[in-house]
């Protein structure tokens, strides 16, 4: 759980935002991609950009990358209005990413690094280091078409982070990776985050959001419908369910809590029973514990927080209901 502690520390420590997007509106023809979306990304944090397909995440990311411009609203980078000079401080790994198939790996990485403003010699040296670290050094002179998909992804990741950007924007960075390589990327991201790099992560992988992200914004139907720190959101949307693990008669536990609390489930397992109990919003957990202790031997007691998956689904469903009701 040390990573969670780390996360909390950093939320408190960092008060300034590296990136602010204010009231962004983007329309294509009749379709509105972003409708008054605002996000604040604190410096040095990992920020999750969530939302169903087609919600507008990629449009927002492209605006931050200055690939397209907003119809209205503004983006501030480090307190300044976003300008072409900031391109070199941003690293972007798009969801649909490719490489020139006929070009040699090293040559291509060098080209892409130079486009980000690195000097040829610096780029070469840094690339050699990363290639060694990711164990693809032998592929320097091979053509890209000879690489496996996973290896090409490694090259793309290296090129994205090589120029040590202040802000890293990764769109579905884990898709297409096997678990070992995904772990490699995760470790690198956490390391860079610890060193102060700010990361925007757009993903559908909620497990990685819970594990890595400090803050999130959930975009649905072109609007930001939910935002805040991950831990805060999970507490905010909790439904006061506690998990009690105990040894002893299941029935005596049942009898003890019945009437006072709402027993959601009781699941006898090999060594112990696991019960989930919902308490009313104003009652305190100690009372539940007091009720349970005489009936059985409690070996575990913890609050069940909703997973990001659940929050995501209920928020999007609720939002879709309200929008269609209007």
């Amino acid at each position, binding site marked *: 759980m040390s990573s969670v502690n780390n996360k909390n520390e950093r939320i408190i420590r960092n008060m300034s935002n590296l990136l602010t997007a204010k009231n962004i509106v983007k329309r*294509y*023809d009749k379709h509105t991609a972003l409708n008054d979306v605002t996000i604040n990304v604190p410096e040095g944090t990992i920020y999750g950009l969530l939302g169903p397909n087609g919600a507008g995440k990629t449009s927002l990311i*492209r605006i931050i*990358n*200055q*690939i*397209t*411009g*907003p*119809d209205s609203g503004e983006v501030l980078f480090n307190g300044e209005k976003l300008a*072409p000079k900031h*391109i070199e401080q*941003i690293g*972007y*790994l*798009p969801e*649909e*990413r*490719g*490489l*020139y*198939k*006929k*070009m040699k790996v090293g040559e291509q990485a060098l*080209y*892409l690094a*130079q*486009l*980000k403003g690195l000097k040829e010699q610096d780029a070469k040296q840094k690339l050699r280091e990363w290639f060694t670290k990711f164990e693809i050094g032998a592929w320097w002179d091979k053509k890209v078409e000879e690489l496996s998909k996973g290896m090409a992804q490694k090259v*793309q990741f290296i*090129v*994205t982070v090589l120029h040590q950007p202040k802000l890293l924007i990764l769109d579905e960075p884990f898709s297409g990776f096997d678990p070992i390589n995904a772990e490699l990327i995760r470790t690198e991201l956490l390391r860079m985050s610890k060193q102060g790099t700010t990361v925007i992560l757009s993903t559908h992988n909620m497990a990685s959001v819970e594990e890595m992200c400090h803050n999130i914004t959930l975009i649905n139907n072109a609007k930001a419908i939910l935002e805040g720190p991950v831990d805060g959101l999970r507490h905010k949307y909790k439904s006061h369910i506690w998990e009690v693990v105990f040894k002893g008669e299941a029935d005596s536990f049942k009898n003890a809590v019945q009437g006072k609390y709402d027993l959601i489930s009781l699941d006898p397992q090999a060594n112990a029973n696991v019960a989930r109990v919902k308490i009313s919003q104003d009652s305190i957990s100690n009372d539940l514990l007091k009720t349970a202790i005489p009936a059985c031997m409690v070996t575990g007691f913890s609050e069940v927080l909703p997973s990001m998956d659940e929050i995501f689904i209920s928020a999007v469903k609720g939002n879709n209901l309200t929008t269609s009701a209007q």
Partner: protein
Amino acid sequence: MSKIGLIIKREYTTRVRKKSFIVMTLLTPLLFSLIILIPTALANTENQNHKVVVVDETHSFCGSLTNSATVNYDFGYCNFKIDEVRKIFMDSAKVTVMYVPPFQNVQQITLYSKADPGDVVISAIQFQMNNILERSKMKAENLDQTLIDKVKTSIDVKNVVNNEVTNSKYNLVLAFGCAILIYFFIFLYSVQVMRGVMEEKINRIVEVIISSVKPFQLMMGKVIGVGLVGLTQFVLWIVLAFGAYSVASQYVQKQAVNPNNFAQEQTMKKGTPQDETAANMQAMQSPMARNQEMVTAFNSVDTNLRNTNWGLIIVCFLFYFLGGYLLYSALFAAVGSAVDQETDTQQFMLPVTAPLILSYIVMINIVRDPHSTLAFWFSVIPLTSPISMMARIPFGVPWWQVAISMASLIGGIFFAVWFAGRIYRVGLLMYGKKVTYKELGKWLFYK
């Protein structure tokens, strides 16, 4: 290096290092000369054995007709009945029976064959017959052969334009050559730009790149990089052509100094088409004289080459080549960006290639009459001017027309690049839907 410089460098080096570039550069001139030489060579060998069996009721042609490169006469059946001879050769595909009826007022001969001997053979026979008949008639009228040769005239036209001697035929060839070269260059390299754009879009590398550079920089980098590849190829071809020319001229000069060489060769090469006509015009020419004729012909081309204002031609050629290429490659880049598979390019290619093909067709008219109204308008409208103006330059064009044409081409380039850039930056990131013209129009005004 600036970012656009990096892009140009990549586009240039990846293309120039390709084996196909080196092979193309060396093979294309060879291929072109083969395209010209092969039909000529084939024509010579194929017709060599065309046998013509003569049945002559006038008894005046047997023996006086002479074999040539195209026709091989057989006088073995001269006095046979035509029906018999036809029967004998009824099934021989490569034999033509020539029947000369007793001439009276109407002079007509008939050729019988299983397969059409073709125009070349027929003309050769006709030409010989005419000559023989003319000469015999002159003899009948008591005209002196030497006198006839003496009065035979060939007028030489000296075409002086603006106090300079010019050769219209030569100008026509030059105009044609320049215009065709420009046409091919524009097509070849603009399509390469389009392919490059599509490659980036389909490979999905484009989003990574335009997060580092502006789409416009990427487009211009590609256009300039590919253009430099074209220029490199062009310069290499000029060097190769100049090399071939100097080798040829040295060879001919040597022949002029040592006529025996040439004479020997000529006797060995008996039976070339020029040979045939020459042989019939005036019995036989001395090999020495014909040797001299060849050298004169070469020298006349040589004089024309030397008299041409190469400075003007090369400057104009480079301007219209680069201008036309910039204009069209930008448009082709826009086409490449608007589609995400090769097969979809067709619908947008048509309006872009139509003016190019049109100016190619109109060029044939322009070289015939380089100062017509049609020629003027086609050579000042930007989409058609690169080819049309280049087809006029060798004939001499008033400077103000060239100025208008160049200015409007430059204006056209700016507009095309702006127009293409607008479509390009939106098209690059559009996947999975078939784009309509209406949509393209909307892209122009996206923010």
